[in-house]
């Protein structure tokens, strides 16, 4: 059951007014322009035990994605494909308002939007991940951990997922006997087959004014958030409207225009990072 949110970070009324006033003037509390992303820091493969991993800091929002590959059973309606599972954990260290427990609707929505945006354009070549067709395939677990929460978990989660997937390597298959597949995780062989990259751009709306990459404090005052996924060919591969107000078509148009522009920037960033990944293979501290 979904409930109108009640336990939210509290934001003083005066700050709420300031944020709104600034946005209406085209400004933001952290000095950004309305269509500007926060600075993005990237650390690749900080978790060697994962098959791939990426730490993304988007302003003060920190997300870590780890990819795990396990041998398992395919879905009965796709017997010859690997299985992608995207999960998001909003662990309680990330925010004073998070409680331990199974993922809530916000974590589930984040995971499902990222899942769909990856799945629909076939970002991963799941058809190359069968081991014994119909019986054993690779399960790709894309686990997104929110570590510090300052808004816009979807874009940060998608960036870190896309990076971690690109870095992921498939463990060595040692032997196959009947349905018994023995693997050696200490030896990583071929890379996970990626078809194309996908990014999401989240745009907030306040009185029909669009603002890119909203901060948590902004999320608490805006009317809506629209997340749009774009693949590297510029196609829309997913949309999710969130928030408790309606949107007019003309405003939506404007939002998509902005998102498209920003998506190109994010794809550019992905290309830059992935063409020289070793530059980003730093330690966490």
């Amino acid at each position, binding site marked *: 059951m979904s*409930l*109108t949110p009640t336990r939210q970070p509290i934001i003083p009324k005066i700050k709420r007014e300031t944020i709104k006033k600034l946005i209406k003037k085209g400004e933001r509390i952290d000095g950004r322009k309305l269509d500007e992303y926060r600075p993005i820091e990237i650390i690749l493969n900080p978790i060697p035990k994962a098959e791939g991993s990426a730490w993304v800091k988007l302003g003060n929002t920190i997300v870590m994605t780890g990819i795990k590959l396990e041998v398992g059973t395919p879905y009965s309606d796709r017997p010859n494909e690997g299985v992608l599972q995207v999960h998001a954990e909003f662990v309680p260290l990330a925010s004073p308002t998070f409680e331990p427990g199974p993922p809530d*609707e916000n974590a589930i929505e984040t995971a499902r939007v990222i899942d769909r945006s990856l799945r629909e354009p076939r970002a991963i070549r799941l058809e190359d991940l069968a081991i014994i067709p119909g019986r054993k395939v690779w399960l790709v677990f894309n686990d997104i951990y929110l570590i510090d929460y300052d808004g816009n978990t979807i874009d940060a989660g998608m960036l870190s997922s896309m990076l971690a997937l690109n870095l992921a390597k498939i463990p060595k298959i040692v032997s196959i006997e009947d349905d018994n597949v023995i693997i050696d995780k200490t030896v990583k062989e071929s890379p996970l087959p990626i078809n194309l990259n996908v990014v999401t751009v989240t745009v907030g709306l306040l009185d029909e004014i669009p603002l890119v990459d909203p901060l948590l404090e902004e999320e608490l005052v805006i009317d809506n958030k629209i997340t749009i996924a774009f693949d590297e060919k510029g196609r829309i591969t997913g949309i999710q409207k969130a928030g408790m107000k309606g949107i007019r078509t003309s405003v939506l148009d404007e939002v998509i225009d902005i998102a498209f522009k920003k998506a190109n920037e994010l794809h550019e960033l992905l290309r830059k990072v992935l063409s020289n990944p070793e530059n980003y293979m730093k330690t966490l501290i």
Partner: protein
Amino acid sequence: MEKPILIREDGLRHDGRKPDELRPIKMDVGILKNADGSAYVEYGGTKVIAAVYGPREVYPRHLALPDRALIRCRYHMASFSTSDRKSPAPSRREIELSKVIREALEAVVFTELYPRTTIDVFIEVLQADGGTRTAGLTAASLALADAGIPMKDLIAGVAVGKIDGVIVLDIDEVEDEFGEADMPIGYAAGIEEIVLLQLNGVLTREEFNKALELAKRGAEQIYKLMKETLHKKYLKVLSE
């Protein structure tokens, strides 16, 4: 199951519909005795019931909001509604859809009229044949109206899709499964606001624009049916 032909040589769809044609739609309100408001909606083979309880006391109390009513919304599929039996425990999909439907309803309900109360919306999918969330949203909107809860506007839900390269209205399960995109929307046609929007699939910008226009057109037809249904009901109540 192999992919069937979705667009036939004559340009019609697998069930004979034109690309911009809705399935047969049925709706009624006030079908349940206990609920304060209720509705039944059919989009072809998709069959949905919604019930509204409230405004009523919040329990536990600390969830109550001082300045508005809480909306609690559950979208749930009956275990027999799908081809393979569905476990009755709420899936991640049902949790997400409960959220997006609730947010759509928040956009039209005058919640500030009922502070410290809750308005509960329960949607049960009896049979799933594509478009369950949008039929559910339509039913929820009707049930709220039936419960006499003041709203800015009614919401009509409908899904458009892309199948074999063609943008079509009100996709059913087969079209969803084998098509290239499924885009459900919730549209408050009177105030011309989109209150629910998701895209599950791949579209170019042009296709998106076309799909959105088609969706709005379809929603307007459903919206008209909703008005008629409520009108008939009120006339009936008045004449009693």
